[in-house]
């Protein structure tokens, strides 16, 4: 009996139970909500969020109040870069991918350098970087939408690829497998947990703490860039601040999945469930005609509630 109770308290199990419950709720509010087509669509949207959250996840696991608030800005920037580089031609996809990854890595590097060398707290550093990115977006675009997705990219994101499932969902699954492997079976992964749970002990055991931390922010930037590219494929063209919503929702997905904001504890599988859950919640809110501002309020309240449930008795800055 106790083990059942314990099992039900696992964040991952909680998330999965909630997913089923929310799908049921959605279906009863609006028949067709849980149809196969709809679920595929939800999965596509969840993939975009899940990819951003993968980067957010490693940064948070790395501890020392690690958090990346600039992911939304990188998503938007990457969507614009991709749109302009490929400009509707399939031949431009590969250069676009490279350009986006480069941009994501670059801004992640700046975040990492600011946090490790200048000792700026991650919250402040990445928030500042978000401001810089938003300004940059206004400058390069001058308010006018530009660039189009290549048909190949759009197909990858929206059309069935294998077994009737679009490529982006396969990509997300692949990222899930990669993350699980990296965190559990590589030295790099073990070191992420080590610096997240006791940075000083990790340093004394020869872990290159600063280099690791810079690396984590670069990974976060690159995942956000991939998500930005895919988002362009999903919407066809990029529009103003297309990535804005990912800042808050990526953090919620990570926390929902059982990763501690204090670092050193958690993993990506839970984050995937968290991302899915959030997207379903968002779908339900849309179904019952709650607008964007209302959805943001619900998201914010969700994060606070989660902190209440998971964070109890554990100081954030442990």
């Amino acid at each position, binding site marked *: 009996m106790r083990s059942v109770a314990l099992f039900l308290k696992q964040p991952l199990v909680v998330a999965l139970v909630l997913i089923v419950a929310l799908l049921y709720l959605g279906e009863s509010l609006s028949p067709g909500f849980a149809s196969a087509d709809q679920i595929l669509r939800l999965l596509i949207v969840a993939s975009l969020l899940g990819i951003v959250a993968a980067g957010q996840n490693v940064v948070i696991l790395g501890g020392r109040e690690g958090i990346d608030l600039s992911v939304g800005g990188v998503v938007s920037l990457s969507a614009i870069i991709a749109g302009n580089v490929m400009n509707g031609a399939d031949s431009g996809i590969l250069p676009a991918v490279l350009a986006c990854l480069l941009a994501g890595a670059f801004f992640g590097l700046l975040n990492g350098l600011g946090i490790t060398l200048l000792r700026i707290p991650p919250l402040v550093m990445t928030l500042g970087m978000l401001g810089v990115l938003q300004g940059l977006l206004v400058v390069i675009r001058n308010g006018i939408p530009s660039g189009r997705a290549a048909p190949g990219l759009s197909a990858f994101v929206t059309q069935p690829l294998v077994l009737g499932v679009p490529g982006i969902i396969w990509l997300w699954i692949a990222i899930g497998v990669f993350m699980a492997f990296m965190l559990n079976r590589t030295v790099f992964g073990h070191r992420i*947990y080590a610096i997240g749970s006791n940075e000083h002990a990790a340093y004394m055991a*020869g872990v290159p703490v600063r280099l690791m931390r810079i690396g984590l922010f670069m990974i976060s930037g690159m995942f956000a860039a991939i998500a930005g590219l895919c988002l362009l494929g999903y919407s066809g063209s990029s529009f103003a601040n297309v990535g804005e919503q990912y800042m808050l929702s990526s953090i919620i997905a990570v926390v929902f999945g059982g990763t501690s904001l204090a670092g050193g504890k958690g993993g990506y599988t839970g984050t995937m469930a968290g991302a899915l859950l959030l997207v379903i919640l968002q779908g339900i809110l849309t179904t019952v005609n709650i607008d964007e501002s209302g959805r943001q309020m619900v998201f914010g309240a969700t994060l606070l509630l989660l902190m209440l449930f998971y964070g109890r008795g554990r100081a954030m800055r442990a």
Partner: protein
Amino acid sequence: MSKLRLNGVSKAYGATLALRRGDLEIAGGEVHVLMGSNGSGKSTLCKIIAGSVRPDAGQILIDDKPVSISGPQSARAAGIGIFYQELSLASHRSVEENICLSALPVKGGLFVDRAALKARAARYIALFAEVAGEGFHAEALVGNLRADQRQLVEIMKALASEAPILIFDEPTSALDRAQVDRFFEILRGLKAQGRGIIFISHRMDEITAIGDRVTIIRDGETIETLKLSETDPGTVIRLMVGGASDMPSARSSAPAVAATQEEAAMSVRKLTGKGFRDISFEVARGEILGLGGLHGQGQSALLRAIFGASTVTSGEVTIGGERYNAKSPRDAIRRGCAYVSGDRGRDGVISGRPIIENVTPIHYLRDRLMIARPSSLRDKAMPALEAMHTKFASLFHPINSLSGGNQQKVIIARWLIDRPDVLLLDDPTKGIDLQAKSDLFALIRELAGEGLGILLYSSEDAELLGNANRILVFNGGSVTRELTGDDRTRYNLYQAAYEAA
């Protein structure tokens, strides 16, 4: 008439007797010195007088009248002022506010009387005006002061209590010569006023310079009170050490350095850094070199600096004849150096993670691994953990599920998977049980037998005397004496530790 008298005061923490029997008598107009080794019960005795620890039994009399001291406030009311060894200052407040902190002058029952505060603080600041050094003034923030200046503020704060009975627990550890001299002049003035002063210091020269009488505490018991003018340092140290103090440590327990292994595992030349200066020595392969002396005399600072965890300002370290001077722990590990800290919570344990991940980080680095395969890691980890007799159910259980001693064994095993050339042990048995300690030292001697050079700092003299081939005694950041062969006695160790730096 005595100013303060303690009759049969005792204090136990659980099963540990911190103070078995404390009898003490302080006369008005004397400086009474308390002496005893680390953990002998001096601090407990002071805390009982100052009201921060309540005794289990015994009687306290002030001016021959029994008093009950229920807390720091009531101690102050009874006329007791204390200088705390671990300074009790508010670092974001000014010098003058700190001096008056325990009794802020108030006007109208509500507001701090700034003028009165300034005037009161100025009196005590003036006492040290010539020796306080640059940047020391009434409005300076305590957090911006040097260590010696902060210690002066704590002294001023104790003086400002104007208590008839004053306790100074190691008040001079950070002060320079001139500051100590000035402080002693002030103490003599207080003596002349008829106050009773309790003074704790580990410097024999200071004790003979200022003290009138000395009470020796050993193993939680006040042994004897002597007039300092009628005794000599040797007698005091002998009383502190207790019986069998002149016996050389058992030779059988420490392996002799094998003749074939005369080459140095590590040599240190004129090494200077934060907390230690001008240290030179060689550790032969197969040798256990002990670092002795009182706590915090530079032993840990030296070990951490050798390991690259703090900076070295000058000097050279070589391993196997090659210049080594590590820039970081990572660098040190790569060149065959290992460091086991007694503070496992801070330096060792990766909390919440499985035992296996706590054993393997050094192996990852030294073997330049990328992939962590549990099956091959298990083969590496198990022998190291078994050598330490570590008790655990599964390699994949979190390290927090183990007892403190077993956690420390896991941390030590971490360093043994790939054998280092030099092993630095920084009080490695702190807070672990006796069985774990003896397991650890058996292993350390075995490792020395395999040709490792080992540096051992321990806060327990028995561990040094029982295991080290040679002992370097640290005092005030430098080595003041080297004990070899039959000189390795408790008496010599204490004498070197307590003599003037």
